């Protein structure tokens, strides 16, 4: 008997990405640069988050021409973004053979109440989360991989750090709790009890958790690994930098050797100017992508 789309196959795909860097790309040329630099996967997009931010308006699934171009250009896995709750965008990406779908707050949500029922799909999904409640809800819906939401397209790591610290701290609390306290914690977090029970028993999340949203330097990537991320997504940081090739390689090495500080110093030399970055407090609530979804 041959079984496709099992939980093990979907979560396992993310396990293979661990310790690696997933890079945002907008065309075949960028995808090839990312692959050569050692990316474990690429995210095919029409625009990187900082450009989505600058352009304003409604951000949707990328033109399939771009996704197809990237699918044909590289042998590493290709991810693509669908709007939160947009069943058809997700099904279209699945039909195109995309390896992973990001149900992403970077795009304008299609549904402000319901996220996708991701267990219904053969293709695996990654979703953003700011805390353990949100992470557990996404897992219960069938997400096979998580990432911090951070604040995409800002080049500011502070939100990704906040979300990773929050999730790790809440996991430690759940693990230390006695089992009869768990239902109240589930109620307080808005988390499914069964998912919390799994986390308590395993001592960790049942899926891989990457860092995303604001990683702009090799040291940022290493910091997120230090805080317990399984790997990192780099969005606007790479191809908005002066020397994308060098920058991409530096991020990959810093992620693998995140505790080798001499190496990170070497890697960080002469990378040119990083993204300018945005102070989060200057963003109105409506401009904060992390507040999309629940």
């Amino acid at each position: 008997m041959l079984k496709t789309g099992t939980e093990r196959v979907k979560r396992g795909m993310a396990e293979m990405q661990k310790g690696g860097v997933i890079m945002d790309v907008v065309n075949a040329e960028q995808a090839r640069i990312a692959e050569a630099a050692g990316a474990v996967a690429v995210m095919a997009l029409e625009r990187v988050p900082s450009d989505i931010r600058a352009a304003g308006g409604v951000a949707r699934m990328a033109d399939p021409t771009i996704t197809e171009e990237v699918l044909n250009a590289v042998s590493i896995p290709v991810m693509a973004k669908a709007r939160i709750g947009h069943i058809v965008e997700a099904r279209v990406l699945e039909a195109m053979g995309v390896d992973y779908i990001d149900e992403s707050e970077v795009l304008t949500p299609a549904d402000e109440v319901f996220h996708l029922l991701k267990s219904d799909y053969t293709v695996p999904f990654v979703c953003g989360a700011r805390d353990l409640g949100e992470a557990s809800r996404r897992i219960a819906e069938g997400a096979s991989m998580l990432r911090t939401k951070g604040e995409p397209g800002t080049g500011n790591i502070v939100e990704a750090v906040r979300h990773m610290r929050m999730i790790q701290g809440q996991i430690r609390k759940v693990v230390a709790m006695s089992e009869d306290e768990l239902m109240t914690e589930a109620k307080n977090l808005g988390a499914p009890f069964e998912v919390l029970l799994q986390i308590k028993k395993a001592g960790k999340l049942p899926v891989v958790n990457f860092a995303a949203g604001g990683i702009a330097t090799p040291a940022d990537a290493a910091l997120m690994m230090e805080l317990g991320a399984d790997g990192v997504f780099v969005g606007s940081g790479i191809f908005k930098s002066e020397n994308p090739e060098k920058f991409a390689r530096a991020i990959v090495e810093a992620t693998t050797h995140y505790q080798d500080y001499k190496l990170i110093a070497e890697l960080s030399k002469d990378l040119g100017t990083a993204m300018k970055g945005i102070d989060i407090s200057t963003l109105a609530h409506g401009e904060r992508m992390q507040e999309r979804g629940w």
Partner: protein
Amino acid sequence: MLKIGVLALQGAVREHVAAIEASGAEAVAVKRVDQLTDLDGLVMPGGESTAMRRLIDKYHFLESLKKFAQNKPVFGTCAGLILMAKRIQGQDTAHLELIDMTVERNAFGRQVDSFEAELMIHGVGEDYTGVFIRAPFIVEVGPEVEILSKHNDRIVAAKQGHFLCAAFHPELTDDYRLHQYFVKMVQTAKEVVA
């Protein structure tokens, strides 16, 4: 106690470490060349072979790994199997070139085609669940290579001397028979040297 390393540049390292420990050996995550010295065997995990190769080149791992493999057992799963092959279809160059075989990358299709299947593995046992994720398969093998398992007529596990490889992910299940088999290979190799 036997000491087995897991190449920890990228991929499913933690799972292999757990499987090795459950099979009665000590496991070490290997990030630097100098860590290879006191190991009895090495596992090359699943992950992305292109990413691993970049990191292998960067830290002069390639020659050290080849030297290590001259007399120490190596077990590669999925991407690790690709690293061990002498020939890769559609590519002019291979990586460590340890096993006399030709492999095809992503040979079963994209992620939506990834699957689980029951396997029979010679010398290991039946009813073994193989988890295949964007998996390669072995197209052909040289005379020295022993075929251990096939799925739908495609070779998915093989052995050549002290080298073992699998196209699937034994580290993603809690069936440790293949890891136990490798630990035995490491034990035998150590006794021969002693």
